[in-house]
């Protein structure tokens, strides 16, 4: 057997908290499974709003952008990148939600006429 496996086992049995990376990986995999489950049920009629809507959601990078653009040493290059990240991510979020709403507004059935 690979010695690494033993090392891992030894670490797990010791009084050591789980590496956040492992927890993150668990979350990631479960979220993908959940995503597949939900999205499969979306009818083809709604594929475009689904794309723009999920696109707006992927603008969640704004959270990272906000965290990155905030720093004590302000004029550091990293913070400038953060500033740009906030601009793009906000564009993504606002544009995505508004355009999705505009589209969904138009989808009407026979009853709503």
């Amino acid at each position, binding site marked *: 057997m690979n010695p690494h496996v033993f090392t891992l086992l030894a670490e797990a049995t010791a009084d050591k908290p789980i590496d956040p990376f492992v927890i*993150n990986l668990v*979350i*990631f995999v479960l*979220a*993908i*499974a*959940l*995503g*597949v489950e*939900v*999205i499969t*049920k*979306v009818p*083809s*009629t709604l*594929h*475009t*709003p*689904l*794309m*723009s*809507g*999920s*696109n707006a959601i*992927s*603008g*969640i*990078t*704004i*959270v*990272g*952008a*906000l965290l*990155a*653009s*905030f*720093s*004590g040493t*302000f004029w550091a290059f*990293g913070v400038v*990148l953060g500033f740009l*990240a*906030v*601009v*793009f991510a*906000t*564009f*993504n*979020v*606002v*544009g*995505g939600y*508004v*355009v*999705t709403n*505009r589209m*969904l507004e138009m*989808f*009407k*059935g026979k009853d709503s006429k």
Partner: protein
Amino acid sequence: MLNMIYTTQPTLTLALTTKDWLGLAYLLAAVLFYLGLKMLSKVTTARRGNLVSALGMLVAIAATFFQISGGETISLIWIVIAILIGGGAGLVLAVRVPMTGMPEMIALLNGCGGIASLLVASGDYLRKSDVQLVGLDWNTLLAIGLATLIGGLTFTGSLIAYAKLAGSKLIPDAPVQFAGQKALIAVLGLGSLALAGVLVAQPGAWYVLLMVAALSLILGVLLVIGIGGADMPVVIALLNSYSGIAAAMAGFVLNNSALIITGALVGASGIILTNIMCKAMNRSLMNVLFGGVGGAVAGGKGAADQGQARSFSIEDAGIILDAARSVIIVPGYGMAVAQAQHAVKELGQQLESRSIDVKYAIHPVAGRMPGHMNVLLAEADIPYEQLQDLEQINPQFEQADVALVIGANDVTNPAARHDTASPIYGMPILDVDKARTVFVIKRSMNPGFAGIQNELYFKENTGMIFGDAKKVVSELSAELSAS
């Protein structure tokens, strides 16, 4: 060593409970996103779903602001300025873009998400390089590399897709391919992955990250430029997925569960759409990405050996439509180009007023993005119940008196069913040729996107009506109302 690093983090000691609350707020946001996506699966709840999801975003942003508040005010002012610029631009574009411009808009949004992830990851790397780079885990470094790579190629890939969809003169709609393109893509792709590995081994090597970023931008261009315009539904769905995965990678960098969950949801959504689009064309993803279908392909049968297509006048077509009991309208990209959706709606009403049954047949890859036709017809106020997908509508063509094809081509080519030599053989098509009469509105006899002539046009029950889709459809309505 590790302990030292942790104790130098200023917030950790006093803010433990605050951090927990923040984690819960992010969880709430993620749940709201999930519910929002779930509600998007029904037309009746979709709009509320979008609002629920937007509420989730508000929660996440508010929590983040709470986290950074109390910091330097200068920094906060700049953040507000950034939000105003990005939000203002997004709002203006989103309100102004016409429904026909939706594919470009979505490509642009994808690109912005991608570049944001790249900037977040590399910005975070630069910030940490001041403080504590040596203590960074291998997985954080790897995530930084991957977020940069995926974010970068999503950005330039989306820009190319945007240019193609917007009909820019700079980038042709047809695939641009050159010798060794695939090999170059493979080398660049593997090379940038290897560089991400180098970054893990040498955390301080910032120039390696710079190289990853540069390669990713080139990769994005190369990947999309070789793909033809009609394959854009697949490309947009795939880029959508990439933007989600990039966000998830940024989440790994920042150790933020909201980003990870959300990125994964979006990534899954994009992959599923990509898969649906590929199946609808009976092609593998590899074939779409590297096949270069849609150029001036010389292959395929010419018009000559298939006999003569019959041209119909508006008057003759009007008489046949007037006598029909059921009509199935088949819209395609040509309807979008001619912006004929409102004219189509009028024609539909005109037919219905004569108690003719009207349905719309929507092929999954009709248009330039998933669901393109549905959005356009919805804009024209056509009830979504009348729109039927491939499986629903195909058995109904046999009973239909008229199939009216408006600007659709390859998705109606019967060769896909029987001609094993045809490049589109095996692709699920709309069986329009089974209707008693088929009318095809088309500008000329030019072959469709796949570069092949459509044998539908030479069938004896097919009549061609040449002209601009909008003009012809309006004239048909006028003809009907006059008779």
